[in-house]
Every structure is written in C-alpha cells, then in structure tokens.
C-alpha cells in the first residue's frame, strides 16, 4: 500500500514538475531559447509571493493574481531589452546571458532575503485531505496543484493551436523572416511569449512555495526537474511534458520509498535511461 501511495503522490507531484517545465517548453518552442535562469525565476516568483502575502496579509493562492501579472510584465521587459539582443544563429549568447541572469537573481535574492529557508503559508488547505478507498489519503493541495497544471497546459495548448496569438507564435517559430514580412513584429511576439512563460513561472513559484520551503539557491534544481520533464515527454509536446513530469515525480517517490537518499538520484537516472533509449523523448512532436 505504501507503494501505491508513493505512485499516487508521485503523479500529483508530477503536476508541479509539469508547471516548472511548461514555461521552459513554451519559449523553446517559440524562439529556440533555453532559459538557464528559469529555475531562479521560479524561486523569484516564490519570494515575490512571500512579499505580497506579508505586506497585504492575503492567502498566497490569492497573491498569485498579483504576482502573475508582475512576472508577466517583467518577462516582457526582460525579453525586449535583454534577451532579444542575444537571439541569432549562435547558441552561446542566450545561454551565457541567461546563465549570468541566473547568478544575478540568486545572489540578489541572497542579498535581500538572506539564505534562510522561507515558506508560504496557505492556511488549512495545506493539511486538508480526501480519504479514498484503500486507506490512501489524497491531499487537497497536491490535487489542486495537479488540476492547475492540467488546466495550465490545456490553456497553453489552446492558445498555441486555436488563438491568433498562437498562430503568431507558430509562424515566428517556423520562419522568423517570413513572419516579419507578414506584418508580425517578432520582438513583440517573443516578448509576449516570455511574458506568458513567466506567468506560468509565477503559478509554479507560488505552488512551490506553498508545498515546500525554498531559499535563494533552490532555483537550479527546479530548472533541472523542468528540463527533465520536457526531455522525457518529448520536445515541443505540451501534453508530453505533463507525462514527463508525472514519470519524474513517480520515479522520485519510488526512489525515496526505497532509500531517502535516492529520491533525486532515481529521477535523474530515469531521465538518463530514457535519454539512452528514446533520445527524442517518449512523445516527440511528429511534425519535428
């Protein structure tokens, strides 16, 4: 029964990982940018949530509605003033600039908030649970996270394939120059993509902060989890990313069940095995 429980909790944890990954996947899909600072931005969002909850005295789940637009604006500005200048044929500039950004965010947070672990307090919802047959309890919060992750991915999927903005994303992704000729401003489109990515990051950051304690150095691990979910699921496939997150969550929980020291290792090893066996991930996008 412990095992079944580990698997169920792993699936729910996978939702959080899918949230880490969705923003990463989105900007890679639109502009082939891999944002090394992604994990640090998630932690930045968690600290932003902390600031909002302490100053306004509201529940972190409500603070999300304040934090998300702020992160979105920040993303747009970041893309337009900094990251757009790095895009081109050479992969080095975006990589190194986002790496520098990662170090700046980490140490900036360290300077302002110190290295003490922090946590967001969401009140009674944190301990509430639903008993299901078989003696397993499902926490309301993990369930809420999972449902949110599914909803976020459904919305992103809808934006990408059903809306005018998504058409602009796909057009710029396919051919930047021709998209420009058709009257799209690619700098603006990229800015919107990053804004959308950071709105998802805000959701991920607040949930991260409610679920566990976090500190300024917690970012890189979140980047790695998100990245693993993207690769396991297959590049460019958002639903695949959700499944990748779930697989990662299950493997980590099973690893922890065997030996607490193996939790993270089990996730990484599952990722490496999938990389060895299916280098394009489990569900690669068919149109490549």
């Amino acid at each position, binding site marked *: 029964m412990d095992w079944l429980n580990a698997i169920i909790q792993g699936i729910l944890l996978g939702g959080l990982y899918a949230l880490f990954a969705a923003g990463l996947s989105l900007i890679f899909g639109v502009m082939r940018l891999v944002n090394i600072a992604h994990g640090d931005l998630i932690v930045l969002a968690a600290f932003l949530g902390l600031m909002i909850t302490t100053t306004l005295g509201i529940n972190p789940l409500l603070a999300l509605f304040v934090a998300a637009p702020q992160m979105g604006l920040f993303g747009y500005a970041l893309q337009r003033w900094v990251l757009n200048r790095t895009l081109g044929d050479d992969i080095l500039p975006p990589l190194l600039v986002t790496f520098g950004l990662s170090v700046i965010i980490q140490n900036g947070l360290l300077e302002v908030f110190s290295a003490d672990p922090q946590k967001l307090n969401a009140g009674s919802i944190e301990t509430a649970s639903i008993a299901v047959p078989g003696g397993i309890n499902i926490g309301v919060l993990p369930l809420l996270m999972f449902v949110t992750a599914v909803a976020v991915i459904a919305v992103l999927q809808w934006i990408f394939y059903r809306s005018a903005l998504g058409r602009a994303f796909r057009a710029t992704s396919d051919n930047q120059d021709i998209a420009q000729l058709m009257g799209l401003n690619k700098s603006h489109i990229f800015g919107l993509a990053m804004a959308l990515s950071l709105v998802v990051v805000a959701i991920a950051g607040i949930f991260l902060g409610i679920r566990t304690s976090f500190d300024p150095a917690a970012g890189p691990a979140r*980047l790695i989890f998100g990245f693993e979910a993207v690769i396991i699921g297959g590049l460019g496939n958002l639903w695949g990313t959700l499944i990748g997150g779930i697989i990662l969550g299950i493997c980590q929980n099973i690893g922890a069940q065997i030996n607490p020291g193996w939790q993270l290792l089990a996730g*990484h090893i599952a990722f490496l095995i999938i990389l060895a066996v299916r280098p394009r991930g489990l569900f690669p996008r068919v149109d490549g």
Partner: protein
Amino acid sequence: MSDTQQYAIDRFSPASRIAAVAALVLIIALACGPWWAGRADMRLLSELFLYMALASLWNLLAGYAGLVSVGQQAFVGFGGYCLFAMTMFFGIPPLMAIPVAGVAGALISIPVAFLIFRLRGAYFAIGTWVIAEVFRLSAAQISALGGGSGTSLPVTIVKSIASSRALREAASYWMALAILVVVLAIVCLLLRSRRGLALTAIRDNELASQSLGIDIWRAKFFVYVLTGGLTAAVGALIFLQKLRISPDAAFSVNDWTAFVIFIVVIGGIGTIEGPIVGTIIFFLLRETLADLGALYLMILGLVAIVIMLRAPKGIWGFVRQKTDLDLFALSRRVVTRKKHQSSHANEDNKGEPHEPQTT
C-alpha cells in the same frame, strides 16, 4: 629568373616569437616562486594557475568544439574524489594519483559523452548539469568517503607529499604551475595540429566544416574526453590543496563552472589568450571586490552579460581586432620569400591558397 618569389607557410609571427620567449622567462620566474613569494602570494598564485587551467579547458570545449557545458564541475569533483579514494584506500602516492585521476576522468567521460551527445545546443548544456548532479548525489552515497558531509585527507598522506610544511607548500605550488603549463601546452599543440585546424573550422562554421569532410561528432567527442580527463586531473590537484572534500564543494556549479564561464567570456571566448587574460582580470576583481559578498557575484554576472551583449569576443577579441595580435603561434600565414634557385619553384606551387589565411 634568378629571383623567384616563393610561398611558404609561416607559423610564427614576430609577436608570437617574442611572446614565446617571454612566456618561457615568465615560467622560469614563476617556478622560482618559493624563493621570492610569500606564503599567501603562493597560495593565491596556485589558485590562479588552477583557475587558468580550468578556464583554458572550458574554452577549448565551448569556444572551439562548440560544446557549451555547464557541468564541468562533474569532472572537477570526480577528480577530487578519485584522488581521495586512491590515496586513502589503495595507498597510491598523491603525486601519482593526479595523473591516474586524469585517466579515470577521461574514461568516465566516454559513456557520459555517448549519452549527452544526443542532446543539442542549449539542451546539451543542461544535460551536462544533470550529469554533474548525478555525480554529486552518488558521491554523497559513498559512506567510506564521509557521505554527504565529506572527509579530510589523513595526516599521514599529507605528510607523504613532503616532510616539512614549507616544502609541501612549495610542492603544491609547483604542481599547480606544472599542471597549468601542461594544460596550456596540450591545448596549444592540439590547436596547432591537424585536429586543431578541424576544430577551428568547426568553431567558425559547423556546416561548412562538415561539407569539407570533417567528422564533427568525432572531433567533439575527442575534445570532450580530453577536457574531461584534464579537468579531472586539475580537480584532483585542487582538492589535494584543499585537503578536504565534500559533495557540495566538489561539485559546486558556482566555483567550478560559473566562475570559469565568466573568466572565459570576459577574457574572450574562442581564443587561447582569452582565458589567460580573463583569469588575471577575475583575480584582480576578486581581490578588490570580494568583501562585497553576494554583490560581487552580481557584478560579475552583470559584467559577463554586458560583455556578451556589447563585445561578444571579450577583451582579447577587442585587442585582437585593434592590433591583430596573436601571442600563440597557432595561425598559418602564407608569406612570400625571395629565393635564388629557381629549381624549387615548381615544388611549392601546387595550387595552395595564396591569400593570407589566419585561423
């Protein structure tokens, strides 16, 4: 007809000739360090040598082979742990353990390369980071080496390096200098070789070099394994000097990758001089700004971003653009030479490119 112009390939320019002599003098002067430098200076210089070696290796990897790794701490830490394991469990003398750690690092990088070479570009970078995390978490599971909290090198092993403290300090200084000279010599010789020409071509244009028949996968694989081995050897020496190892220190992304990347970016990526200039600037900055703590790292990150956006070739790229200076004799130039015997004229004129070609 007696004065025929002939073409020849010249590897050395006047500047690189002077630089080669100056480098030799400098190495001899530095080798005499224990006689003129204080204890603190020697420690600082050793650290500088080791960072210069790491930066040169990362530059070879990212600047020439296009393999942008943010996981080289995997090999630094692996080398360090190898040294501790070999000296503590197998009684191998520390000096011997350094090259052995290098070989072990090269061997382990082979399966790693097969795995992560499946990832492209930026995803490769994060993949290397995952590998480093796997190494760190695995090291934390080795209880014989202290698990998560790490271990210190036993006193008997430390004393086996040299009997007196002064001699030990001199020895560790010489080892750092020696490994830097070895690394720079290997990088320099590699880039001068046929393989190096292929690497430079890959650096400049991957597609074009492939169409000229260069096997890109093999060239990259070779560089990855070479830098993996040498980075492990440097890592072994780093932790022989620290005398203490723990998973977090050994596989620290900040210490062994972030700093190294900043050094190379600031100095100038894709040039052999860049990491050298970058390391000197990095240490000057550190000695003046280190009191600022976290703020210092923010400044460093900002400087790297500004350089990447404004002058992506770094400081050495700027110098080179202004002065056309090459301190290392890596490039090939076609020079014209006056010769008196016309009998050789036909031999050297086999349709080689006549315009000066710098690589």
